[in-house]
């Protein structure tokens, strides 16, 4: 094999190592990510279910079990000192569900959800609240418009 050929093989080997590194790193990260986002949605759904339960127990006649009303999925993002608190970057929701996005911030700005093109004002003590039906599938960026700060991404899955 020529000298150049050997050099090429060496580059290839380095490249392979880099790829393997990417594969393993990304594998590890994905599981972390899944758990954090899972946590967000599950807390959200548990709050809504407890609400429904408390209203039904107040009635005397137990009604025939209705299909559980699908409560909106909620997600809350907090911005403090110009940065997102915590590590919440990918919010997941199923297509067709109602979604409520609440953003608390210690600055005045606008929250912009791309794709759906929804905007809401936010100010200290006045959280932005965006409620909508997750009708379009895809991944959409949520940002603080004037600052251009990415708050997270919304993933709507079919």
């Amino acid at each position, binding site marked *: 094999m020529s000298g150049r050929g050997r050099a*090429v093989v060496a580059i290839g080997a380095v490249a392979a190592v880099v790829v393997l590194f990417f594969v393993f790193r990304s594998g590890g990260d994905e599981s972390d990510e899944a758990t954090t986002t899972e946590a967000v949605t599950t807390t959200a759904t548990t709050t809504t279910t407890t609400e429904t339960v408390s209203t039904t127990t107040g009635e005397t006649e137990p009604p025939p079990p209705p299909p559980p009303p699908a409560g909106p999925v909620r997600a809350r993002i907090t911005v403090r000192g110009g940065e997102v608190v915590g590590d919440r970057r990918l919010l997941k929701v199923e297509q067709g569900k109602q979604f409520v996005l609440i953003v608390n911030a210690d600055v005045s700005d606008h929250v912009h959800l791309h*794709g759906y093109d929804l905007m809401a004002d936010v100010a200290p003590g006045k959280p932005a609240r965006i409620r909508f039906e997750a009708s379009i599938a895809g991944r959409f*960026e949520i940002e603080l418009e004037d600052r*251009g700060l990415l708050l997270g991404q919304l993933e709507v899955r079919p």
Partner: protein
Amino acid sequence: LTYPLAHGIGGIKDLPVPAWLFFYGAAAVLILSFAALAALWRDPLLKHGLPGREVPFLERLVFSAPVRILFGAIGVALFAVVFAAALVGDADSGANLAPTFVYVVFWLGLVPIVVLIGNVWPAVNPWRAVARAAGRLGERAGVRWEPPLEYPERFGRLPAAVLLFAWAALELAYPNSANPRHLAIAIALYSLVTWFGMLAFGTEPWLRSGEAFSAYFDLLGRLAPFAVEEEDGRKRLRLRVPLTGLAGAEARAGSVAFVAVMLGSVAFDGLSRSTWWTDRVLSVRDSIGADRTALADLAVTGFNLLALGGMVALVAAAYLVAVDAARSAARGQLRPEDFLRSLLPIALVYVVAHYFSFFVNQGQVAWRLASDPFGNGWDLFGTADYQPRYDLLTPNVVWYAQVGALVVGHVLGLVVAHDRAVDVVRSRRLAAKSQYPLLALMVVYTLGGMWLLSRG
């Protein structure tokens, strides 16, 4: 485009290709590869077996002076509007035509035209049109410009490869690529380089060697049915059988580098769209602090550039390793440039797989911005209030298009490589043997492309 675009183009991404579709796609690649290997080595059909035909009427029309002037004028007018918008239009990239026109209408929109019809870029290339018009005017005034330098042919396409890398770096590595003012600076710089190159070496030599978009669309145009060929110093228009434009070698120096940039930049775009990568970029930003934006932008650009360069090097290294193995198998009868054109279908389907949905979504924004290019409230064509619909493509359509495109591109690449091998290598047995490394290369490229699309 890359994150974080403060007001970037889009803000919408595809859902990652689901694992099951990834596996079906991978299986299809492997099965089709073996079928192709078993069936394909015969004669160099693409090279010799399928002559094109002449189209005299169309040829007269296409090369007539009015058509030439009309297309040149369209190119220059669009260039002027876009550059003016970038320079003085609304500073918000979402309200300014320039970023969407440059990255979507021009860069992505020309690809289907060039591939499905023919390379129209020389006809609308504003830099070329201006240079030629200036030359004509000068001649009429009795001044003839003789380029002082002769282009050193040993550099081949290398300047174009460098400039294509710079373009990819602007689009994909630089966080403020959609900022109209920054784009204006980039357009001005590129125009200066281009016109300077044309003055120094002559218009056509620079277009062949140093104008990145000319080289890009020239290579992609090899897939097209219509081609312009020189014959006895006269331009001829030919209609050819699909793929026959890919026969032969791409022998000019710098071609490997150029094609590697074509493939590697799209691969980097796939990587940079994954949540994993955006998180890495965010942590670079976080480590610098929220208040030092300029420094953070610089650090992110450097970080992205490393990965972009790495991807290009990876693509090039994989190709050179495969060709080296193929050459050993064919007892030295092959050279690196022999299989370069078999990568062009792959380059095309990488673009289709990565940008097809972006083009459909963001193209609608261009429709709206066309009426109000400067963002000052005009409504030239009555489309200023058009609301883009982002539900035109369902994730399923996008996924099948992505995986389907990659599989088809892989098979086309194999066909072209086989044709080249049986043309160049004397013994049919050795030609067949030389194709195993190429097969491995195509499988790696295709699976790598799919793998990047399946990353969250």
